[in-house]
């Protein structure tokens, strides 16, 4: 594996060069937070951030996406035909993604790319994206990535990992896609032999800073119905206001809703993010809603991430420990606390361990 070194003063030059061949997405600073954005010409990314307010999932999976257009004009040749929306084919470079967020695409792919169904929209965007990670030297106090299957220097879902080593960056090239991108940017100076040990040093330091953890060892062993019927959901759900914040900032929430929006004699078929917190989520045409109460909805979100997913894929939880929902939940429902409750629940006594996290 190749490690290249980039002087910070050459950074912008390479990024501008990349914009000729890629749509470059990177964190930029808004008034009080950072978020991913497609960079305009001359626009610089800002890497002085811990976590972006929202996850970068929208780069691959926009909150609202036109799938088709249609005409209801009987005089038109295209009357009644759903025409697939033309998509921009330019490859995407996702720059400065945190390793935990990159890992989230691996979890979400399980939903959009199965043996029986392949979601063409998600996959097209995913396949044309190159993920350039920015190793996390200063994790937040709410980060628990190391107990959620990933970590601040996790390489498993990245095409390259950029490490901030003071006045320069060290970059591990992890895939052909990654190598191609770095060549296109003109970043080809090989790092000195000591680079690898320097990265290892920084990695250990970063990992030791992730002090928040969740216990997940017992989740698979728990009986689904025991957890479903556990009395603690009443307490967990009490403060919930059923807004969509947790699901919208989450990198692994993948639910969507399809809508036709007609204006005059034409319209679009849209795919919008949905949220299990909303009253219409899983509402049946009959009027019945299997998740009709606040408690049902809150339970659904945590059971999906921490039990159904765990049972179905046997590869950990559907959460990467980014801590965004912990920071943004307006009423302080903390997934770390809920995860530990579910993990420690004893159906015999109906008791669980309540941690202050």
């Amino acid at each position: 594996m190749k490690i290249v070194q980039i002087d910070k003063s050459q950074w912008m030059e390479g990024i501008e060069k990349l914009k000729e061949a890629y749509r470059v997405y990177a964190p930029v600073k808004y008034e009080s937070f950072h978020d991913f954005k497609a960079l305009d010409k001359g626009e610089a990314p800002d890497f002085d951030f811990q976590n972006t307010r929202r996850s970068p999932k929208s780069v691959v999976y926009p909150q609202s996406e036109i799938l088709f257009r249609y005409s209801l004009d009987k005089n038109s040749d295209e009357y009644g035909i759903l025409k697939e929306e033309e998509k921009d084919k330019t490859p995407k470079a996702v720059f400065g993604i945190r390793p935990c967020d990159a890992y989230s695409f691996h979890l979400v792919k399980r939903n959009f790319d199965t043996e029986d169904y392949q979601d063409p929209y998600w996959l097209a965007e995913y396949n044309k994206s190159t993920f350039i990670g920015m190793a996390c030297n200063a994790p937040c106090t709410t980060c628990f990535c190391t107990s959620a299957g990933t970590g601040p220097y996790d390489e498993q879902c990245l095409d390259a990992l950029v490490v901030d080593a003071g006045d320069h960056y060290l970059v591990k090239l992890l895939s052909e896609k990654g190598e191609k991108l770095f060549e296109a940017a003109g970043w080809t100076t090989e790092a000195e032999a000591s680079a690898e040990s320097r990265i290892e040093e920084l990695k250990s330091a970063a990992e030791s800073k992730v002090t928040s953890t969740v216990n997940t060892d017992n989740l698979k062993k728990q009986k689904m119905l025991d957890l479903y019927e556990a009395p603690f959901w009443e307490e967990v759900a009490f403060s919930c206001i059923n807004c969509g914040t947790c699901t919208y900032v989450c990198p692994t929430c993948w639910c969507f809703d399809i809508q036709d929006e007609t204006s005059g004699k034409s319209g679009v078929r849209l795919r919008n993010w949905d949220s299990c917190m909303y009253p219409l989520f899983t509402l049946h045409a009959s009027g019945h809603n299997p998740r009709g109460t606040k408690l049902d909805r809150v339970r659904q979100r945590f059971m999906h991430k921490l039990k159904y997913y765990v049972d179905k894929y046997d590869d950990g939880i559907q959460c990467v420990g980014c801590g965004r929902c912990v920071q943004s939940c307006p009423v302080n429902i903390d997934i770390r606390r809920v995860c530990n409750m579910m993990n420690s629940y004893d159906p015999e006594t109906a008791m669980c361990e309540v941690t202050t996290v």
Partner: protein
Amino acid sequence: MTTYTDKIQEVAKRLLNDGTVDFVIGFRKGSVPMMNQPHYAKAAGDAEQFIWDSHCGLNLANYLMDREEKVGVVAKGCDSRNIANHIVENKIRRDQVYIIGVPCTGMVDRHKLPKMVDGEITDVEEDGDTITVKTSNGSQSFNKSEVLQQNCADCSHRNPVIYDEMVADPVEEQTDTDMFATVREIEEKNPDEKWDYFEDLISTCIRCYACRNACPLCYCPLCFVDESDPQWVGKGQDPIDVRTFHWLRAYHCAGRCTDCGACERVCPMGINIREFTKKLNKDCYEIYGWEAGLTTDERPPLDTYRPNDPEEFIK
């Protein structure tokens, strides 16, 4: 603040033990800085988690609607005004709610404080009027007046307007505040400037509806933006639909909003949503001399018809 905490716990335990209420709603310490969590106690033991400090900014009137039980609730000035509004709107009966009144000295602005310090905030402590912020890079102290939510800085009803019992003597009300200063600034803009101002204001909205759902006034069984048959509003990110949501929501709150600031506090994107409701509060104040939730004897002005209405069109 410790004295408030002790007193709230003491009152809650007494009410639960003597059966005055079935449960009590208050706050417990949250798991991240500046975030206390609404908490309910059904037994005296649960009441030991109740606390009070400058991070109790949510409006607990939001947890009182359509209940059958007898409920005790911890209420600062604005919460009490929303409880009064609930009573007028038949969302809860006065004899069903036991109001534990808290004289309030304002809440810390959880969106503003991170912009005033360097590094991630790890803890916020308070001692009287001194707020000490610990961050990953050190520690910094502020006078509480510098870090208040704007609605608290402007507040003229810090003491509960209705209560069954107070946890302390009333605090002095602020009389020299100007609630509508920013509204006047916006009113002076020309139509294009106003348009740009509001477009920019909601440009980062993700339609999570936290503002609506944290608001005690928003209790429709199905909000117009959620309804699908008929569908009034598109559900995507089209700016027209985002605008429609914010404008209609604000109008639904006209004459009812107590400026508690919950909508702004809960917004994950830090949008100053009160800019919408405050203009309507100003109109109600200037046209009808009305401030919401100060009495349980009168319905809000836009909810009332009087035969002597001065407007010709209504006669």
